[in-house]
């Protein structure tokens, strides 16, 4: 159950700075995910920890031992790639026991750990099959088993589910977490799928342009992100400009689109009167009604309505051309709104996030590049 520490990691490819000074500690027994848009440096970071990529500066420690100069095979890790790399001429059993075999253990010695692992991964019925006879999910489970039978307690997963169909991916992600927790492993999991990260991680690292933007538990980052970019990247969010009209401690009164909106602000220092700000709210936290509401109510018009199974997604237009996305669970009773309908949004205070206007502008702060 190792603890990993990355300190001041920099990596440059030509003119492109892939990692621009990254410091991160992964606790013993933790399931940590790294997310961010393409090119944010998440793959370079996990590869630096694995020893596949050699950073230009900075150090990697595993259990306080500096492993920076060591190659991947001497770091005692299990590494699973996005591209499922199994030996095509070996069956599942032989693929999984490969790691132990090259370490010189005899077939009887290998039997125990290999069978135990195959059993944990529900692969018992597949032992005699060859990779081309397996589904994508079973192949990736075989690859994960192989990475783990070598006995390593640190599992590095580089988009392990990326090549799979959505449905298989959802099932397998829970199995992965269960496995890691049952075996008491430390896992670092790189993914571009934010729901995957939210659902299985103890903590999530959000990266952008070679830097860490924010680190926290899924709940913290989803409910109370400190950075605009986190709100944008994890889940969906609406962003609206506003102006502070009154401040009382952490309670703010804002003018948003000529409506009075009450919000709570945790920023230190707090915002001052007449200061501009950015409000963020997730589409599923907005309520929508046919009549004006008492608090935090904004008039709107329904511009688009689409059925997505468990909920309706509405795009609504506010007076000044601002559009918001609203997601309402379908409970089966209320008739859904139609395009062109007038409606009133209600923005619950506890779910409204207040941010300072970013110095470089909104577009830059929210940009995925």
């Amino acid at each position: 159950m190792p603890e990993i520490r990355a300190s001041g990691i920099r990596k440059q490819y030509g003119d492109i700075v892939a990692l621009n000074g990254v410091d991160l500690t992964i606790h013993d027994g933790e399931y940590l995910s790294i997310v961010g848009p393409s090119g944010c440096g998440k793959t370079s970071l996990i590869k630096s920890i694995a020893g596949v990529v050699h950073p230009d500066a900075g150090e990697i420690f595993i259990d306080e031992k500096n492993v920076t100069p060591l190659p991947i095979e001497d770091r005692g890790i299990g590494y699973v790639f996005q591209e499922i790399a199994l030996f095509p001429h070996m069956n599942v059993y032989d693929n999984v026991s490969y790691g132990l075999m090259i370490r010189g253990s005899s077939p009887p010695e290998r039997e125990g750990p290999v069978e135990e692992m195959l059993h944990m991964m529900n692969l018992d019925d597949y032992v005699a099959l060859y990779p081309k006879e397996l589904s994508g999910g079973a192949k990736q489970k075989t690859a994960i088993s192989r990475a783990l039978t070598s006995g390593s307690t640190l599992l590095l997963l580089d988009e392990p589910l990326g090549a799979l169909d959505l449905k298989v991916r959802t099932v397998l992600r829970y199995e992965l977490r269960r496995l890691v927790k049952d075996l008491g492993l430390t896992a670092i999991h790189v993914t571009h799928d934010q729901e995957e990260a939210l659902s299985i991680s103890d903590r999530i690292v959000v990266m952008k342009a070679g830097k860490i933007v924010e680190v926290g538990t899924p709940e913290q980052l989803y409910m109370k992100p400190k950075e605009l970019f986190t709100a944008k990247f994890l889940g969906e969010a609406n962003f609206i400009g506003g102006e502070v009209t009154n401040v009382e401690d952490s309670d703010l009164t804002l003018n948003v689109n000529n409506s009075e909106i009450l919000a709570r602000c945790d920023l230190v220092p707090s915002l001052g009167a007449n200061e501009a700000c950015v409000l963020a709210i997730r589409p599923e936290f907005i309520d929508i009604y046919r009549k004006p509401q008492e608090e935090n109510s904004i008039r709107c018009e329904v511009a688009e309505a689409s059925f997505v199974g468990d909920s309706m997604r509405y795009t609504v237009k506010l007076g000044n051309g601002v559009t918001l996305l609203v997601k309402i669970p379908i409970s089966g009773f209320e008739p859904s709104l139609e395009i062109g309908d007038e409606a009133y949004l209600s923005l619950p205070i506890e779910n409204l996030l207040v941010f300072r206007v970013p110095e470089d502008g909104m577009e830059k702060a929210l940009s995925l590049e």
Partner: protein
Amino acid sequence: MPALRLLNVTKRFGEVKALDDLTFDVKDREYVCILGSTGSGKTTLLRTIAGIIKPDEGEVFIDSVNAGGIAAEDRNAVYVPQTYALFPHMTVLENVAFGPLAKHISRTAAEEVAKNVLRLVRLDKRADAYPNELSGGMQQRVALARGLASGARLLLLDEPLGALDVRLRLELRTELRRIAKESGLTVIHVTHDQEEAMTIGDRILVLRRGRLQQYGTPYHVYNRPEKIFVANFVGNTNFLEAIVETRTREGSTLTLREGLRIRVLDSSFEPDEAVIVAIREEKTQVTPEPTGEEPNRLSGEIVEVHFLGSHIRYVIKLSNGDEIAARVPLKEARTELKHGDWVSVSFDPVNSHVYEYPMLGLQGELEAN
């Protein structure tokens, strides 16, 4: 007059039927999503319509004309492949004008066409850029513009958003539909992402191993899944094995394992028949205590809690050992519920579907692609 009609189309690759007796219509200006997993025959279907692949049996009609003898380039249909192979040494404008130019119209006329479609995909300002200067999303829009510039009325899109970051994919979804509707095109869009299909499609065609499983509006496919496969592929569903105990015209009583009883509205199966009951995860209620009158009340222990951002998902192990998952919108979630709690689980008979017990067994049916 349908824009497209397939009549008993079958295509074999060796022993495998990639398309198996497919018959369906697509209306003029309709947006149809073909939904299926890897290997379901989605791409083969598109390429058959495009005329790139010749079916072994059956016929394809485009605008009521049998397309059998018509070469791909002469069909009023354009295939946009998944990998948007743009010419790297040509500007965006040149890439898009390439198709029209190849049809021997003047350069001025070809560029006029290209400028028009670039405006449609909102890339007119980047006409002079080279592909490598564009983001993935922009490149995808150039590929789409190339398809549009061909002037074909039937657009065949193969996973058009598959190569993009999740964020971009969400944004481009509505854009795609807007373009299709504004230009009055008929579109067939292949995807394995059920939410994508639900959001953009006028109708969804679910494909499995080359066979049509269901064809209908998103609402219909979601709320009336005709097969276990569809209920599993579209949305998140619990499946329980049961035996019909009694039935009346109003519904049936089913026995789950260990004698647990539930009521359903279906009455199409005989007593003693083995069946599968399907209940959507979001239609499954969880409460700390039984609230009194709820129908189909079961009880069990919370064995997993997954934070999904907009929802919390509880996995509950029922007293008979079966597992059932409940997906609760975050704003309605009772945060005091935690791992190990004994809870009451219930669902409305209206929200259940009953299916014939599959030949492969439940697990076999769910795992088979």
